[in-house]
Every structure is written in C-alpha cells, then in structure tokens.
C-alpha cells in the first residue's frame, strides 16, 4: 500500500517493460526504496540508521561467508585456523577484522536505531508490528553475535559460552538437562562449537527474512517522523528516491569513515586480549566479560546477588536479563500517550535521557570486574531500568501534559501550512 499520490513505476526500456510483465522485481524495488515510496519530508539524521543496519548485515554476510571458506569449526584447530586466516589467507586479516568490527558497528547503528524509536515513539500505533519485528531482529542479532564470538575458540570464547549456556542451568527442574542438551556435553566442546558455527551461519539469513517483514510492515503505515504527526497531504512527503537515497548515501559515507578508522587503525580496540589465548578449560580468566554490546545486560544479570524470597539469585538474574529485552515487546501498550514524538513530551523527554545515562552506567559496570562499587551501582541502575519501562513510562503517559503539536509536517518544516503548496512534489524534480 502507499499514499494515493505515490508515483507509479513506468518502465521505459522495452526490456524493463518485458521484465515488469513477467517478474515485477524492479517495480518492487521502486515501490520499496525508490520514487514510489513517499516519505515524510522532515526526517532528520536519526532516520539514517535503518539503512545503515541493513548495510551492516550485508557486510557481515559477505565477510562471514568468505571467512567460513577458511575457518575450521573443530575445537582442536579452530583457534589455529583463525590465525591461518590472519596470516596465510590473502587479505584474510582484512576479512576477519572487517567481520569482528562489523559486528560492533552493526550494534552501534542498531542501538541508535532503537533509541531513535524510543525517543520519537516509533513503536506506537499504527507501527506496533514494525517495532515487534525490530525487537525480534535484535534478539536474533544477539544470539548470532554471541555464537560468532565463540568461534575463534579463544579464552573469552570458551568462558563466555560457558557462562551464557550456564544461564539455562538456572531454570528450575529442567535447567541442567537442558544445558547439557544445548551444549551436547557437560561443558562447551567440539559439539557446542559445531552447532554454534552452524547456527551462526544460518541466523543471519533468518534475520534477513525478518528484515523483509520489518520493511514490509513499515511500508503499510509509512515511515514515522520527528514531529510524530501523521502524513496528511502530498506536501508532507517527498519520494524516497532521490531525496533519502541521497541523504542515506551521505550517512553511509560518514559511517564508513568511522568504521574504517577502527578497521585499519585500531582493529582490536573493542575486543578482549584474552581471546588471543587459546581456549583452556583448566584456566579461568581473571574477569569473564562479554563483548561491549552485551555489557548492560551482563550488569543486570550480575546485579542480583541475593536470593529474593524463594527465588534463587541466579534465577532472578537470568529472568531479569531476558526480561530487560522482552519488556520492549510490550512498549507499544505500556506507553499510551497519543503524542508520539519526545519533542512534544516534556516529562517523557527527561526520563528518556535518564534511561540513556542509566544504560551507559549499566554498560560501564557490566564491563568492569564483579566487585564493589560496580555491583552496587549496577543494582541501582537495574532498578531504574525496570521502573522506567514498567512504572514510569505508563504513569508519565497517563499524567503528562504534552506541548502543542504542529498542524502538519509541512507546517513544521515551512512554518505555515497555508503557505505550503500542495502537490509540489507530484513530479520528480528534474
């Protein structure tokens, strides 16, 4: 579906007309990210991260498939085969560093994408399904990244796998057998490494599938925008191409500059030195820490240091860690404010920034050793995290008095809707 004023695909070349009759693939692309998709004209740079996330997925799949050609998923040689890629494979170091830093870059843009959604209320009706699919993609990404980190079979790979699969052991009654079944053994070993590799190869394609649904669901109501006011008329929109292809092109350039700075000049800055030590089940690292993008959840997991009535501390931590993401699924129904954008919600806006700081604090604590004062700080931050989504947001949405909204997107951009000319974008500017 689209707005009535969306441009229609009109193939000019005979071949394109022929193709359009048999398989309208160019028409699909035209309506998805071409001139056939009218987009609010006021999107700011926070709206660049969806395209960048898609770019990161392609980057990860391309580099990952090449790495899989040279990698050996066997506990005896996995570490050595990674070094073989770094030393003997032509440009292998580039592929591996591109993949490892690509994972970090992917999470950076996806976090920014998610926080864009938090601030501008992108999760609200009529875009709940876009949001639900997005959170699903994020969960799949986390699983994929975790299993990918295990593959080099270094010390952090092994001990990270042990800690995370150990979480399943906290489930009452079935925990231990479930953990052994998932690992294919009592501890991570060849069986676990092989299934992690298999799933690590599979899941990105599942993610690609869910992304198609995510974009499909997005195209039904159309993109949200910084005012949160829905599109009313043609003057509120511009065609995706060339306006947002041009804007995304610039955004992609800035992203690539930052990414390549890491890739070429500090490729190990975001990794942990211990992962250059081969996995050793007999030697526990001094501090087991996951990759940076898991630090906030790791802090939440470790914050529960005391049993709570009949619930053991470990089970509390595991439930809280999973709930910290699952709660996002319910956000469209927790936040009932009819105003979408944080620009017009003075109280919500303040709590949004508290949440940002809270997550940075949790991240810092999650990357630090499990000792005081980090544990106590992460306990306060964890309490705020849950109160924010489950208590503060519902209450704020009930009591807040939003600021006046602009009448339309056009008015927000051009000042007065009366002066804005309807239909100025009927034809693509030439």
């Amino acid at each position, binding site marked *: 579906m689209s707005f009535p004023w969306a441009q229609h695909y009109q193939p000019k070349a005979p071949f394109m007309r022929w193709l359009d009759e048999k398989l309208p693939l160019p028409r699909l692309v035209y309506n998805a990210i071409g001139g056939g998709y009218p987009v609010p*004209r006021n999107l700011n740079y926070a709206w660049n991260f969806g395209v960048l996330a898609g770019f990161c997925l392609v980057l990860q799949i391309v580099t990952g498939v090449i790495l899989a050609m040279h990698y050996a998923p066997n506990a005896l040689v996995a570490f050595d085969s990674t070094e073989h890629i770094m030393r003997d494979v032509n440009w292998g170091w580039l592929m591996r560093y591109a993949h490892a830093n690509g994972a970090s870059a992917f999470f950076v843009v996806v976090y920014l994408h998610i926080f864009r959604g938090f601030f501008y209320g992108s999760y609200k009706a009529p875009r709940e399904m876009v949001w639900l699919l997005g959170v699903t993609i994020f969960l799949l990404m986390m699983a994929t990244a975790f299993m990918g980190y295990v593959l080099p079979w270094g010390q952090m790979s092994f001990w990270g796998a042990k800690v995370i699969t150990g979480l399943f052991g906290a489930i009452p009654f079935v925990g231990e057998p479930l953990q052994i079944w998932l690992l294919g053994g009592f501890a991570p070993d060849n069986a676990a490494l092989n299934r992690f590799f298999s799933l690590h190869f599979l899941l990105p394609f599942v993610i690609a599938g869910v992304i198609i649904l995510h974009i499909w669901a997005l195209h039904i109501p159309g993109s949200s925008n910084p005012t949160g006011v829905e599109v009313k008329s043609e003057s509120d929109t511009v065609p995706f191409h060339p306006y947002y292809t041009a*804007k995304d092109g610039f955004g992609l350039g800035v992203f690539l500059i930052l990414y390549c700075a890491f890739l070429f000049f500090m490729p190990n800055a975001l990794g942990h030195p211990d992962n250059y030590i081969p996995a050793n089940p007999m030697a526990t690292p001094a501090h087991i820490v996951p990759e940076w993008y898991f630090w906030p959840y790791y802090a939440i997991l470790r914050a*529960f240091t005391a049993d709570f009535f009949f619930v053991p501390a470990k089970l509390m931590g595991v439930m809280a860690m999973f709930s910290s993401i699952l709660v996002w699924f319910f956000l469209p129904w927790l936040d009932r404010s009819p105003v979408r954008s944080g620009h017009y919600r003075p109280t919500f806006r303040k709590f949004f920034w508290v949440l940002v700081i809270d997550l940075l604090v949790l991240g810092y604590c999650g990357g630090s050793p499990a000792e005081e004062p980090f544990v106590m700080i992460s306990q306060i931050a964890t309490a705020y995290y849950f109160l924010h*989504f489950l208590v503060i947001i519902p209450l704020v949405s009930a009591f807040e008095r939003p600021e006046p909204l602009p009448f339309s997107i056009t008015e927000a951009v051009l000042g007065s809707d009366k002066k804005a000319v309807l239909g100025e974008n009927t034809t693509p500017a030439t």
Partner: protein
Amino acid sequence: MVRIIGFFVGLFFAVGVLWAFATGAYTVASQGYLKEKTAETEFHRHPAALHLSSDGPFGKFDNRQLQRGYQVYKEVCKACHSLNHVAFRDLAELGYSEAEVKAEAASWTVPGIDPNTGEETTRPGTPTDYFPKPFANDIAARAANHNAIPPDLSLMAKARHEGPAYIHSLLTGFTDPATYKNEDGKSLKQEFPDFQTPPGLYFNPYFANLNLAMPPPLTSDGQVTFKDGTPATVDQMATDVAAFLVWTAEPSLGKRHQTGWPVLGFLLFATVLAFLAKKQVWARARVRRD
C-alpha cells in the same frame, strides 16, 4: 491489563535488585571497606609506556629492530617459549634475503622422519617449517618449569593489555620484594608483612599475582651480541624483543596501515561528493513556489 501486570513485574524486579543492594550495602557497612585490599590489588604495577615505531596510525616496523628482537628470541626466549604460528619463511618480512632465510632456517633443528626407516628423527629446518617447540609436550614443559607451562609467544603482544609495554616491563621488572615500593611509595614489606614469594617463583610487580615461574631471562647487559652493533643493554633487548613480538602477533600491521590511508582518503572524497549531491537534491524540496 498489560500496564497493571507490567507494573507488578517492574516492582518485582526493582524490589528484588534493591533487596540485593541492601544486602550488599549491609556487608560493606559491617566490614567497613568497599573492596578487600590484597597485595595483588595494591602492589600490582601497570606497564610503563613503551614507544615503538609500529605505534599509531602511521606506524611501521623497523626491520633492524625486528632482526635484533629475533636474535633475542633465538638466543634467550626460545629455550622455553614456542612461536607456533610463525614459519621461517615469514622471516623474509624482516628484510632477510631468500638465502639468509634458508640459512637461518637451517640453523634450527626441527623434528623430522627418517626417509629410510620411518622413525622420528631431527633435521635442519627449511623455510617452510614452523619454529620448533622447545618441549615435546605440556607435561615435559611443566616438569622443566616448576609446574608452569611457558606460554606460546606468537600472539603475546595482543594477548595482554598494553601487550608490548607489558612484555618490556615484565622483562625488566624483576625486583626484590623486600625493598619494593609501589607508585604511591608504599612498601610491600610494611603493608603486607606476610607476603612471601614461594620457592621456585620470582617476584615481579608487573605480573598479575606478583609471583611468576619465569626466572629473570635478561640478566646482564651484553647477554646478546647484536649483529648491527647496537649496545645490548637489558632495556634495549627487552624493547627489541617486544617489537619483534608485535610483528609475530600482527605481521600484517604495516600493510594494514598502508592500506588504511588510501581507503580513508577515498571515503572522505566520496563522502564530500555525497554531501554535495544531497545538498543539491534537497535544494529542490526546500524551494517555496508560492
């Protein structure tokens, strides 16, 4: 309904974690300190800064230094430490000619198979061989080293925080615990009178738990006679071997830096063009036609 259930779930987790906070706060208050102080936490020293030519985005290897570092590895470290991921052919990257690499490989003895009997034997190395291991297996390594396995050095510069600086500081940092003072000027003997270095271990404040099984490997100036005539002070030998281990850990470093600059240059150019294109495209949307 979602909000009512959510409200109670939120309270459950918040109260649960604040309960844990209260328990922790009570413990801290009753013991009177946040974190227990131990000899390891108070007297461990961070590596001293080390500057190598490979540092920074313009860094590249100094081949003469790498050759000196290789010499230190060959004459000192290799007695106990393997270099599993490096082959003799890789030495060509240090500026050795093909003939020199062959001669260098041949100066090492590597395990081989007798072509007539099929029995295990030894033979001179060839450029395709990897550096031989000093011990037949882990048990032999433990037996010879006070129950500690000397770690492989190929990746050491990347496998420790501030790798090269750590290597340099560790090699030059052996000292007497009786007179050792930390950066704050506190004396180990005074603060922890019970601290002892167990027999067979050696005190080194740069090592995480202060005592390690490696005896000081670089003991006196001139221990190695550098072929290029550089005076072989202990500090020079430690610096050179740290530089060499940066190369063994990351042989592609020079090529990576060399590739990175043109890539960044191109991206910068392309991004400027993309910005101008974006400006031009959007100029049409901003035009008011009333």
